[in-house]
């Protein structure tokens, strides 16, 4: 949910695994399995950076983005959550 929330908050943004780790506070050992599972379920989609490593002067990054299905699922889950939990979540996202 934390990962989905951060991707949901920036619907146009595409985040790399490192960005997800920074925003969620998860370690690489936790973040990547979560990203992999969410992608398997169709909640996320990912693509390689369009530039080549030569152009970037570094290895390409994999960028993750919330799919429409992922947005629907996340919002449905938010709707089902208890009012208190929802309030907490919204307060966090506002902060």
């Amino acid at each position: 949910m934390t990962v989905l929330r951060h991707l949901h908050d920036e619907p146009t943004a595409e985040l790399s695994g490192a960005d997800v780790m920074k925003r969620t506070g998860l370690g690489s050992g936790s973040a990547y399995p979560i990203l992999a599972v969410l992608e398997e379920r169709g909640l996320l989609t990912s693509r390689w950076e369009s530039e080549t490593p030569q152009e970037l002067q570094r290895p390409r990054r994999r960028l993750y983005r919330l799919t429409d299905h992922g947005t629907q699922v996340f919002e449905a889950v938010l709707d089902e959550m208890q009012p208190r939990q929802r309030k907490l979540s919204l307060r966090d996202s506002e902060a």
Partner: protein
Amino acid sequence: VKTLVLWILGLLALWIASIPLRLANSLVVDQIKVWLRRGLRGLVRQQAKRMPDAARWEEEWSAHVDGAEGDLAKWCVALPLLITPARLSLERWRDSDEPFKSWAARMLLDHGWLIVLVTLVGVWIQIPPSWERSAAYVVLLTLATLAALFLSRVRTRLTSLYEDNLGFWGRVSFNALLVPFVVSMTVVWLKVPASGPVPTRMTPRFEHAQPTIFYVPPSAVAMDERVTFTNAAAIQTRIVSAVPRRSIVAVKLDVPNKDRARSGFPEEPLLLSGTQGLPAAFALVVEALDPAQIPGALLASQPIPPATSPVMPRPAAPTNVRIIK
């Protein structure tokens, strides 16, 4: 002036000598950095191989590791990748239709570190080993885990909280059970004196016990030979086999007229190597908590009387070589 010149020359010589040392040093450091980076690449590659799409994960993780500033940060990113494939399997396992699998996976994912910690503490507090206490610890730990799982599930059903919160409540219930459990077990192990069979290793908590001390003549264990460096180990073995391990607190050898270092038993050959060449007519002193456990040959001996009693005087000027079992 001459001293000053020599001093300056000495400094120059030191400076010149330091050049190859600095070069060698920087070469070594560079080489170590190369090895570390090679190790990083190998680690990423090995972990990626355990993932479904190895090439993709290797490239993605390599980019992530390369993006970290500094060697230490790179390792901080790379090391957790060691658990990533297992964690991914667990995440999939959690999605299983079988409730037990999902509970077990949730427990491992949410409390894996705690389980490892409790296990390590469990191992630590069971030294020295005792089957009874180990079994009790395992049973109680299992019950606590099952109770935590049960509470977690009940809490889930009752509150209908979602995934993120389940981890929290599960953790709360788990800790609420485990902390007092671990503390109480630790206190029991460290403070309560043992009852029942005496363990094979002497520990501080048994020091207050008052064993019966037997003074055993060499004939009781057939030690009528000279102790040499080569037969010391064999004699040690014979002593061990002559007394029941579980009933003996300590075995001492009284060797007349020689100071001997205290030594562990029976692994350390130092014990008897110091007595080589001496007559083996030393006495065997056995301290036992339960005299009924002493075998027939040793029962034939008499308990050692107080030092003032003339019934069975100890050998003149004895010095103990102590064998602690």
